């Protein structure tokens, strides 16, 4: 049935609320379009407001003398056929003028049972943890490499301020070479101040920058810091109940081990070309406001390979293999208080910029506990990054009900033999844990060879 909502109009640019001074029609009365319906008073003018449509005044939601914000629904004009009670509740909700997304999100999450989100290892925002220290996987990893690259610039990139402080304190900045914690290993104000605090100059090896203030999202991880907070002992042992997130992770991991026949295969990939590409395009991406992380390349290569090997993008339901058309790749994000796997949807429809942007977005939102339930469901494949803390490679556990998960080791320059000559190349180890119930080794290896080939022949 047709009904028209009558709103408080905006009577001038600076006006954002108005008072209804008089209703010219009563509930149930007929009104013609453009016939005066009510009178308002605002900071600027007093005015008669005409009806936006013809019909019967079905409901009046704002009483005379009441002040409401512009665009608030003040009345409903219907054809006289509907029950007023129904529209009343609906329109009432709108008069509150609360951000519309909030009730929506609630409505979506509520009916979901808390524990059974199959595609994720935890739910956002459940556990309260300490302020996040670790950033999202992709960013961290990018920072790490940049530290390595910093070495090539003698590690003495600084700022005018740092140079001034150094000269004031008679510090030779080469003493701090390679110890900078800023972007590209840049020596920051914090670095030099903490160096001075440690007795600067006299000491040959300054202590690493204080991780306390560096506890920000994009700060590089402090590898020395323990992953879990240190335990305080009152006796021989200390018993600490699992956090809700930890409990979920534990359940999911054991469940996955029990469900799938895990096999892991390993591939070595020469990252020269993607590093070149990244070097060449980083500035342009930055101009678009996006940090081009190395992970982006692996996500894109995996998406392409998943298209060619649909079995890897499937799941097993009883005796049926369910192939999935969307390619939704989950990215394991390490948090201080656990682990979460936000999903980038339809990766195959995104270009490198889109992927890089999505990686930063989900990482940031994971860190800020801003992920919605939609962000962590419907994954069809997962990528995890055990290399971020220096691991050569890991053997990840499949994220059920998916059938494969790719692990990324740390990128490291290694001596490799190319055409019988020894060359130095940035090498990464990749692993793929797959469910041998549906994927055989040959297919898994072909899939990984596909990923490898794409990355090694990336168009620079």
């Amino acid at each position: 049935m047709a009904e028209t909502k009558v709103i408080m109009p905006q009577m001038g640019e600076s006006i954002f609320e108005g008072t209804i001074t008089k209703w010219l029609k009563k509930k149930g009365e007929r009104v013609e379009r453009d016939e005066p319906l009510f009178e308002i008073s605002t900071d600027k003018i007093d005015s008669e407001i005409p009806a936006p449509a013809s019909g019967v005044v079905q409901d009046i939601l704002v009483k005379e003398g009441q002040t409401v914000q512009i665009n608030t629904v003040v009345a409903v004009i219907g054809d006289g056929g509907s029950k007023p009670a129904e529209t009343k509740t609906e329109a009432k909700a709108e008069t509150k003028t609360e951000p519309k997304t909030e009730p929506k999100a609630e409505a979506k999450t509520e009916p979901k049972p808390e524990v059974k989100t199959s595609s994720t290892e935890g739910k956002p925002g459940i556990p309260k943890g300490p302020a996040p220290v670790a950033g999202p996987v992709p960013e961290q990893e990018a920072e790490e490499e940049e530290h390595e690259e910093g070495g090539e610039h003698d590690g003495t990139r600084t700022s005018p301020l740092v140079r001034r402080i150094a000269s004031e304190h008679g510090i030779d900045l080469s003493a701090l070479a390679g110890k900078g914690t800023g972007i590209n290993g840049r020596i920051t104000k914090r670095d030099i101040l903490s160096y001075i605090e440690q007795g600067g100059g006299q000491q040959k090896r300054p202590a690493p920058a204080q991780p306390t203030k560096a506890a920000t999202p994009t700060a590089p991880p402090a590898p020395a810091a323990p992953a879990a907070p240190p335990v305080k002992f009152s006796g021989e042992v200390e018993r600490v109940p699992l956090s809700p997130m930890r409990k979920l992770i534990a359940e999911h991991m054991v469940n996955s081990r029990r469900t799938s026949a895990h096999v892991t295969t390993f591939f070595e990939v020469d990252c020269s070309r993607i590093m070149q590409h990244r070097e060449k395009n980083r500035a342009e991406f930055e101009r678009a406001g996006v940090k081009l992380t190395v992970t982006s390349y692996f996500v894109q290569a995996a998406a392409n390979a998943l298209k060619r090997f649909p079995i890897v993008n499937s799941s097993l339901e009883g005796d049926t293999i369910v192939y999935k058309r969307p390619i939704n790749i989950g990215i394991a994000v390490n948090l201080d208080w656990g682990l979460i796997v936000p999903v980038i949807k339809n990766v195959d429809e995104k270009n490198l910029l889109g992927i890089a942007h999505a990686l930063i977005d989900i990482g940031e939102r994971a860190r800020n506990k801003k992920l919605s339930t939609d962000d962590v469901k419907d994954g069809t494949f997962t990528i995890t990054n055990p290399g971020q803390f220096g691991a050569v490679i890991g053997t990840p556990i499949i994220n059920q009900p998916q059938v494969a998960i790719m692990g990324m080791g740390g990128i490291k320059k290694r001596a490799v033999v190319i055409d019988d000559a020894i060359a130095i190349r940035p090498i990464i180890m990749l692993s793929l844990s797959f469910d041998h119930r549906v994927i055989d080794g040959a297919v898994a290896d072909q899939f990984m060879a596909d990923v490898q080939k794409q990355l090694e022949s990336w168009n620079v």
Partner: protein
Amino acid sequence: MALTTYVEAIRQGIWEEMEKDERVFVLGEDVGIYGGAFKVTAGMLEKFGEWRIIDTPISESAIVGAAIGAALMGMRPIAEMQFADFISCAFDQITNFAAKCRYRWGAGVPIVIRGPSGGGVHGGPFHSQNPEMHYVHTPGLKVVCPATAYDAKGLIKAAIRDPDPVIYFEHKFLYRRVKEELPSDDFVVPIGKAAVRRQGSDISVMTYGAMLYLALDAAKELEKEGIDLEVVDLRSLLPFDKETVLDSVKKTNKVILLHEDTRIGGFAGELAAIIADEAFEYLDGPIRRITAPDTPVPYSPPLEEFFLPKVSDIVRVARELYTY
């Protein structure tokens, strides 16, 4: 005590100055019977009469020209531009006459030109602009952009008392959105003095007008991550408070320059140059700008939202700068 809105603060300031000094009068479009497009002059016609509250034809050039003439004859006119966007019609009068009189003949032109400016109100390309830089680039003028009700009142009074032409940009978005308790005494806010609205140690955000509130919101958000923003409200652009700006740079060593005006030729560019000139050795990172893009203000609400700087922009840039 009652809270006073930004728009009411302007009205009070003019009212009090008119009561105190009979040389002060208002002229502009619809300022009399209608009380002004934004009701800044409401009730003034009744109180001060038609000789002091003058409705003019729709000609900004004539309004400012008449004001200049009256000022040269010893009056203290306040010329209202209905929207700051249309001040361009009076550009020649302002930049070639008002601004240059003192230099050419030693004759000050004590006029105030009020311009309701700024976006965020879905006003489209002709009712949302921030035209301050045309005048900041004109020696001989003074340009102020209050962000709070206190400053709105204190600066309009200072502008009226000033012996030279003052362009007073009042932000439409703030008119009825910001309010505060005002002291009852006769206070002024000196032209050319900034205010540090939030003390911080990591990054200085320099801004003015409605953007102040975005900077403060961003500071609140970043506080949770341990990033401590200092927020400087410039209040006056010409002359601007170089000392406060440089002091803040020297304290935090990192700077974000934020304004609602478009980017090229915006005030941020000028500030960046001065900071690079005079505080280079205090910088621990690049000087970053957050501004509207170089286009007219779009009418479409989603496009306007995209166009205007947002809290999330400040948060993002601050994070980048913090780890630099």
